[in-house]
């Protein structure tokens, strides 16, 4: 028994090492550049593919193998430099998290390119020369390569610590992590520093991927499989902390290895449970430090909101008139797309509500969308309730969970808060996924179709439009009410807001719950529009979609989420139907939009308007 447990622990250590290698690069990049690099998983995947190509092309033997692995890591480093110089460097000054949109474009492009270059089949690389077999430990066999990996993790950590603490470059990087502006003021070439940091981070991602070659097959799903876990490790460890990331990787690796002995089905949710517990107990991760300055202060207070100028009002009215008057002439399919757009406009607006004016990003906003959808569907399935009852219940269910989850989340700030929302969303997702008796598991709930009076696509479109647009306008109204002022006050300056008698916690909590409630409305309508609900409704990709819509439209304008939702849904719908390589096309369009409109689409429109007419509203 004891020997089994020891081997289980060793297996956990090996996974921890692999996880740390990927997370190390991510945390280094974030620490200095503050970029949430969604493409880190793609770099990892490219590392594995390039290593496969190099190792199988080079002569067999230790030199060919290790040369291939290191060569792949360096190549990925160069790809990272390319991404930084061509794309990210141009948008460092954009609003927080905007770079996420850019790196997401890169993810899409890499997915299609990898398919084109390496084909659809999984590739199996050779095993490492000299480390093919196993050793006996207490009479049980353990792979030599896993022992090697166990050693690689601490070795890389040691080298990185030496690099950061014993070289001038490392000192500069640490200084930049603390205070970018000051380092720049002292005459350090920031551009070079950032590019070199990105090179290092990308190299580590590539190395992590390349070192998996003897363990795993190389496949097209590696990027998304690793990225979320890598983020969790970084956040649990404390953003920017290498030792923290190492500890977090150890914690997750070991908990996983032993967790599956007791609860085999815990695999889906374990990392998120760990993250939720750690963040609730330690709001800045295991070894993270609270930021010196309040996070929003870094970019300065955002421009105040003003009522919409007349031109914008006229445009809004025209758009509304079009949305009401034209659909009778559209065909049934166009109506279903319009219905979806109306739903996503509200979904994006609800995320924007907490993200823009509230100053709290959420990576798990789909939780409330999905909870709304599930509430409506469950009521229809178990109580055979009419549609209206389900649509009514949806916002309440979502709002209740918003109150519950929000109570924990709004205490945190920045990426920590966003990751805690993700943790709760994943916990909700895994309940929907695993509680088969009630939710139907991943086979979902079917037969959630509108009642006869709303079955006609046109009728359902008008119903959706009325509620979703109504709720969107209501959210907008709230932002111009005293509550909205308090919300923005606590975002721009928590201290001053507090001095004015604003209870920042309460304001954020209420705003979070209100946003959840609004997302729940959208979710309810979504369930009845699709006729079925699956765990995908509250999964990470759905949350990412909402983020992309808000960022694409522009976080700092009130019409941003509306424009973003319509643009994103429309783009994806058109490209998916018309273009075979739609991910490549969508990724390229996103990258282009990011480069040309770093303030988002609506932000760019406002900037153009202001150049002609002076300061305007949102």
């Amino acid at each position, binding site marked *: 028994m004891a020997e089994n447990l020891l081997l289980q622990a060793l297996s956990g250590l090996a996974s921890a090492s692999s996880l740390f290698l990927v997370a190390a690069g991510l945390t280094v990049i974030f620490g200095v550049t503050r970029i949430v690099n969604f493409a880190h998983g793609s770099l990892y995947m490219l590392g594995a593919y390039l290593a496969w190509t190099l190792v199988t092309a080079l002569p067999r033997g230790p030199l060919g193998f290790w040369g291939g692995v290191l060569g792949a890591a360096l190549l990925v480093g160069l790809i990272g430099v390319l991404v930084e110089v061509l794309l990210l460097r141009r948008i460092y000054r954009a609003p927080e998290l905007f770079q996420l949109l850019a790196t997401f474009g890169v993810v899409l492009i890499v997915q299609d390119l990898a398919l084109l270059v390496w084909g659809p089949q999984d590739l199996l690389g050779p095993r490492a020369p000299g480390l093919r077999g196993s050793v006996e430990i207490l009479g049980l066999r353990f792979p030599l390569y896993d022992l090697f990996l166990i050693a690689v993790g601490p070795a890389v950590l040691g080298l990185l610590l030496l690099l950061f603490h014993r070289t001038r470059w490392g000192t500069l990087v640490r200084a930049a992590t603390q205070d970018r502006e000051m380092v720049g003021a002292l005459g350090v070439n920031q551009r070079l520093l950032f590019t070199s940091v990105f090179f290092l981070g990308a190299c580590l991602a590539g190395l992590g991927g390349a070192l998996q070659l003897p363990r795993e097959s190389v496949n097209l799903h590696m990027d998304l499989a690793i990225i979320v876990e890598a983020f969790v490790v970084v956040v649990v460890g404390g953003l920017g902390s290498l030792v923290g990331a190492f500890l977090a990787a150890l914690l997750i690796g070991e908990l996983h290895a032993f967790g599956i002995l007791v609860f085999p089905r815990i695999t889906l949710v374990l990392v998120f449970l760990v993250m939720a517990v750690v963040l609730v107990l330690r709001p800045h991760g295991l070894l993270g430090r609270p930021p010196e300055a309040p996070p929003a202060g870094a970019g300065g207070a955002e421009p105040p909101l003003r009522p919409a100028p007349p031109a914008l009002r006229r445009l809004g009215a025209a758009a509304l008139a079009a949305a009401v008057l034209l659909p009778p002439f559209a*065909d049934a399919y166009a109506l279903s797309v319009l219905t979806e757009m109306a739903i996503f406009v509200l979904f994006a607006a609800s995320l924007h509500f907490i993200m823009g004016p509230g100053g709290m990003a959420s990576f798990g906003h789909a939780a409330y969308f999905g909870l709304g959808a599930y509430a409506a569907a469950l009521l229809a399935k178990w109580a055979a309730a009419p549609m209206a009852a389900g649509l009514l219940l949806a916002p309440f269910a979502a709002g209740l969970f918003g109150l519950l989850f929000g109570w924990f989340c709004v205490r945190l700030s920045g990426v920590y808060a966003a990751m805690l929302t993700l943790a709760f969303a994943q916990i909700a997702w895994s309940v929907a996924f695993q509680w088969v008796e009630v939710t139907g598991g991943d086979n979902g709930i079917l037969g959630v179709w509108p009642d006869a009076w709303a079955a006609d696509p046109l009728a359902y479109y008008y119903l959706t439009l009325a509620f979703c647009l109504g709720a969107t306008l209501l959210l907008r109204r709230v932002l111009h009410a005293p509550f909205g002022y308090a919300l923005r006050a606590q975002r721009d300056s928590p201290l001053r807001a507090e001095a004015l008698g604003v209870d920042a916690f309460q304001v954020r909590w209420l705003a979070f719950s209100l946003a959840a409630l609004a997302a729940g409305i959208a979710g309810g309508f979504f369930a009845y529009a699709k006729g079925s609900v699956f765990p995908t409704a509250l999964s990470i990709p759905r949350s990412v979609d909402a983020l992309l819509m808000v960022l694409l439209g522009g976080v700092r304008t009130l*019409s941003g989420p509306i424009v973003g939702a319509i643009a994103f849904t429309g783009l994806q719908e058109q490209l998916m139907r018309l273009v075979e390589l*739609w991910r490549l096309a969508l990724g390229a369009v996103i990258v282009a939009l990011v480069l040309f409109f770093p303030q988002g689409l609506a932000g760019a*429109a406002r900037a153009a308007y202001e150049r002609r007419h002076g300061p305007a509203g949102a």
Partner: protein
Amino acid sequence: MTGRAIARRHLLAGAGLGAFAAPAILRAQEEAIRIGEINSYTTQPAFLIPYRNAWILAQEQVNAAGGINGRRIETLFRDDAGRPEDAVRLAGELLRSERVHLLAGGFLSHVGLAVADFANQHRRLYVASEPLSDALVWSRGNRYTFRLRASTYMQSAMLVEEAAKLPARRWATVAPNYEYGQSAVRWFKELLQRARPDVRFVAEQFPALGRIDAGATVQALAAANPEAIFNVTFAADLTNFVRQGATRGLFERRQVVSLLTGEPEYLEPLGDEAPENWIVTGYPWEQIDTPEHSAFREAYQRRWNTNPYLGSVVGYETVNAIATMLRRVNGTETEAMVEAMRGLRFQSVFGPVEFRAIDHQSTMGAYVGRTVLRDGRGTMADWRYADGANYLPPDEVVRQLRPAAT
């Protein structure tokens, strides 16, 4: 808010265009029978690219032979990106804008179920090709949905037949943590214990799909010291599981019974590390020399310059089934097509197949055999064709399993 108005106007213009364009297309190809095919092409390319290749081949063959009563068939392929909500939207697009006569396709079970429910709601025929979930034809089966591929139950039952012959009494299972893996394990346990009451299940592992922690999973299985293992993992999870299991000696002196592992999609990537002597379901494409299969293999190799995968057979036979059905009906009226599908018999490259009227499941089977290494790559030996008709529950059980039976 300028952007908003512009975006919305553009959209309406585009949508309007679609509405006006549709009749023109219809006029131009008045005679063609249109099939709307939805699948997860971008997320499952390894299976679906060979699938679509064979689909196109079959369609070309049908049209070259004069089509269906003089009408050509044509297919509109759509990618759902693995998302059921997108699949439902595309189903609407195909039916309402493109005016297809029937829907087909599907790889992932939940996507298949979403489209099946949509088809039921709108009373249109859906021929599901690959989704394996039993729910598709049983607990959530409906009048308008038919499924070609041998289901999770059928393939589990085929393996139970072999597993019951083994001396092993202590079994462990490993399966991906989602519906397919869970049902496969459930059926396997239930059927094996019925056949062999002396069997005990001593461990189970449910790694997350696509993210197996193979070292820990293998170690956890080994710790329970089973005599035999039932494996349901596939694709990348399978590769990682096999590598860790082989290095740690998990498979030595243990029998392994494994679902789908004999399919070239999953056996080929393993190369010379393919496990030996596993009892598997699969498709030994290079060894099946029946006239029907040889003709298919040669035609496929000629058209695409590559070897067929199991996905190719599934794509080819979906078109074959649809074409056979269409030859039986006059026109493309849905209810007539549904009636023709019920009990439809056709000759597949695997042998004769029937779409059962009782549950709309086809009897297309699978090959059961042992894995072996030949010339540095894995293949199947001692295989036999297991006709799906023999691995389905008795009719009265099926009626219970399919409550909404019509």
